[in-house]
Every structure is written in structure tokens, then in C-alpha cells.
């Protein structure tokens, strides 16, 4: 099937293969936006069964139209499956990812505004690298549902990533979940209204600097979140304290957590007790 459309918001390019997506997603800029839509589901193994799948540069705004790109298999160890520059990715399911490189990567194209680059997406698979890596400022993920099995941190960036209303299920032997390199003295929102369900038996710090010091791990805000993190050892949440919206942590799955600021550890008796959770300041509906 050939590409249709002209790339405008009213008449986007409609692509039907990985190669077509790669061709059109690389077009455009923030000042001259290009729009791309998926015309059908894509089985990437049909085009690249050997793992040599080319990267998608997201300069354009890609709307998945609710469709699925499945079997995204990459043996490359550098780069990423998706390189977000001026574009965005929305409303698509990325299933059966199996990659030795990051799924998403951004550089200085993402400005300090931390604009939303990935939204309303379902993303699942195995990632033998950081799921998301950023060279400078991070993009935001909004209303995304992730189910990732990895063997390192979920993210690696200079400044903290931003997850807004995301469901993150993550399994990894890593000692950290968010690797933050050089945030300085500033404070950044990292998680808001999100649900973290992690199985990380060796976790020591939710955030940590690359030098493995904890000087950076207090530089993030975690607001209004549910944290259900299974771990065997003692770990530090490392979020910034202050008058922040209350988050809750499932105490039975993380019995030795330390450094809790605005995150309240909740025992199993009260874990699904909305009245109790409301009483400790967690924003939850309580039945009349």
C-alpha cells in the first residue's frame, strides 16, 4: 500500500509499514509540523525479522489511531527504537518489544518545558537497556500504560523524567529505577497521579545519581501516586519533602523503606481502605 495524505493536520500522511512510518515520521519540525497516522496494524517482524530494525525519528506528530505495532525486535545496542526530536507519539499500542537498545531517546530538542511527547500509548515488552534515555531535558509521558521487563534502570537522564497519569509495571534486577545524572539544586516533578507497580528485589533507591551517591535523589517530586514496589532490601524513596500531595506506598511489599517524605507507608490492613487513606491526606473518593 502506498502512502496517502499530504502531512497536514487535516490530511495526515497515512502509513502502513514500519519503513513508511520511518520515512514520514522524520519529516517536519516544531515550526513546520507534519502529521502522520497509522493506516493499519504493523507487524515489524514482517519487515525486519533479523533484529536490524531502523530507528524511527519522531520529528512529526504520529497518531497511532488506536492501532498496534507489534513484534518490534532490535539487536542493536546503541541508539533507540524511537528518537523523539520535535514530534510526538500518541494513541498507539507497542506490543512485543524485544530490544537491546532504549525504546525512547530524546536530546536537546526537548526543551526545559518538558512537553508531552508520548501520550495515550500502551507499551509492553522486554528492554535490555533503559526504557527511556534522555541526553538533556526529559519529555513527558502522559496517560501511558507500560509493562516492561528490563535489566537496568527504567530511565536514565540528566534531569528527571516526567510521568503524568501513567501506569508503570516494571521488573528489573537493577538497584535503581530512575537514574538521574546532573539535576543540580533544582527540584523537578517526576511522578504525578501515577501508579508504579514494580518488582525490583535489589532496589536500593528509587532515584539515584550515576555516581551512585544519594545527593541527587532528593531532587524529585512524587505527588498523588500509588507505589507498589516489591523489594527484598532496604531502599530509599528519595523524593523531595514539603507540602506536596500525599502519595502512598504499599508497606508489605517494601518493609524496609527509608527516607519517606510525603509518601506514607500503608500496611496491608489499610491498603484498600479508602476512608483510612483519605484520613492520612491521600486524595481518594470515599463512599458516602
Amino acid at each position, binding site marked *: 500500500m502506498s502512502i496517502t495524505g499530504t502531512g497536514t493536520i487535516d490530511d495526515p500522511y497515512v502509513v502502513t509499514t514500519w519503513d513508511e512510518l520511518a520515512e514520514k515520521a522524520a519529516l517536519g519540525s516544531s515550526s513546520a509540523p507534519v502529521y502522520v497516522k497509522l493506516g493499519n496494524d504493523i507487524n515489524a*517482524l514482517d519487515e525486519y525479522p533479523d533484529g536490524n530494525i531502523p530507528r524511527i525519528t519522531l520529528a512529526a506528530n504520529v497518531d497511532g489511531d488506536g492501532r498496534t505495532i507489534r*513484534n518490534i525486535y532490535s539487536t542493536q545496542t546503541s541508539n533507540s527504537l524511537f528518537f523523539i526530536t520535535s514530534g510526538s507519539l500518541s494513541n498507539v499500542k507497542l506490543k512485543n518489544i524485544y530490544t537491546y537498545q532504549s525504546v525512547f531517546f530524546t536530546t536537546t530538542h526537548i526543551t526545559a518545558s518538558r512537553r508531552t511527547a508520548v501520550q495515550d500509548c500502551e507499551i509492553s515488552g522486554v528492554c535490555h537497556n533503559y526504557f527511556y534515555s534522555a541526553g538533556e531535558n526529559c519529555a513527558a509521558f502522559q*496517560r501511558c500504560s507500560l509493562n516492561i521487563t528490563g535489566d537496568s534502570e527504567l530511565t536514565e537522564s540528566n534531569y528527571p523524567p516526567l510521568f503524568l497519569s501513567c501506569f508503570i509495571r516494571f521488573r528489573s534486577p537493577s538497584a535503581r529505577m530512575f537514574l538521574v545524572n546532573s539535576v543540580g539544586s533544582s527540584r523537578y516533578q517526576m511522578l504525578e497521579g501515577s501508579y508504579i507497580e514494580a518488582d525490583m528485589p535489589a532496589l536500593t533507591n528509587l532515584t539515584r545519581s550515576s555516581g551512585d551517591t544519594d545527593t541527587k535523589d532528593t531532587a524529585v517530586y512524587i505527588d498523588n501516586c500509588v507505589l507498589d514496589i516489591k523489594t527484598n532490601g532496604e531502599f530509599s524513596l528519595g523524593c523531595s519533602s514539603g507540602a506536596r500531595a500525599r502519595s502512598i506506598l504499599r508497606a508489605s511489599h517494601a518493609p524496609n523503606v527509608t527516607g519517606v517524605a510525603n509518601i506514607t507507608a500503608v500496611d496491608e490492613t489499610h491498603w484498600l481502605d*479508602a476512608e483510612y487513606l483519605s484520613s492520612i491526606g491521600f486524595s481518594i*473518593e470515599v463512599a458516602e
Partner: protein
Amino acid sequence: MSATWNIIDGEFTHSDLPVSIAAVMVRPYPPEWWYITDGRLTHSALPPSPKAGAFCGCTSLKSVSIPESVKSIGEFAFADTALTRVKIASDCTYYPTSFPDGCVIEFYDGGE
């Protein structure tokens, strides 16, 4: 943050939160992804297991006499032969793969 959480069916959720997705990997797996199927360790780039039966592939074999004393016939023993009908002891054990597809199996005690 304005989102107000709720508990529905034992799960925390709120109006802006997507549902959790369950599957991490489902078939087809990428090449060289190992998995266990039908009790065998294999991977997606491997061809099907070789058949190793005694008469497997003897395409000119149209009939065979199997004594009643034979009590066990292995996998693929007569696979890919021209057999259309065999007779075996009723207490003889065999596999679905022992004989070619469509081969009628009779028993010495009269059953089929």
C-alpha cells in the same frame, strides 16, 4: 494535582489513569527467543524437531506386520510412510505421531 483516586474491584484507579496492560511478550517471539512448547525447549529460529522413527520417511512402505507381542511403538516409528492400515496388540502403547496421518489402527482383539 487534581486527580482523585478510587478503588474499583480492588484496584486503585482514577479518571485519567489508563488500565494496566498484562502481556509482556506473546508469540511470535523474535528469532532465537527460547521458549518451551509441548514440553520441548525450542526457539523461533529452529526448524521443527527432526523425526527419528525407525521407518520414518520410508515412503514406499505400504504394509507392515506388527506381532501381537510388540507392546510399544515409538514416536514417528512409521511416520511419513504409505501405511493406511496397521494391526497392533490392544495393550500396545503408541503415540499419535507413530503412524502417518489417516492410518487406521486395528487391534488383534478385533477393535479399531
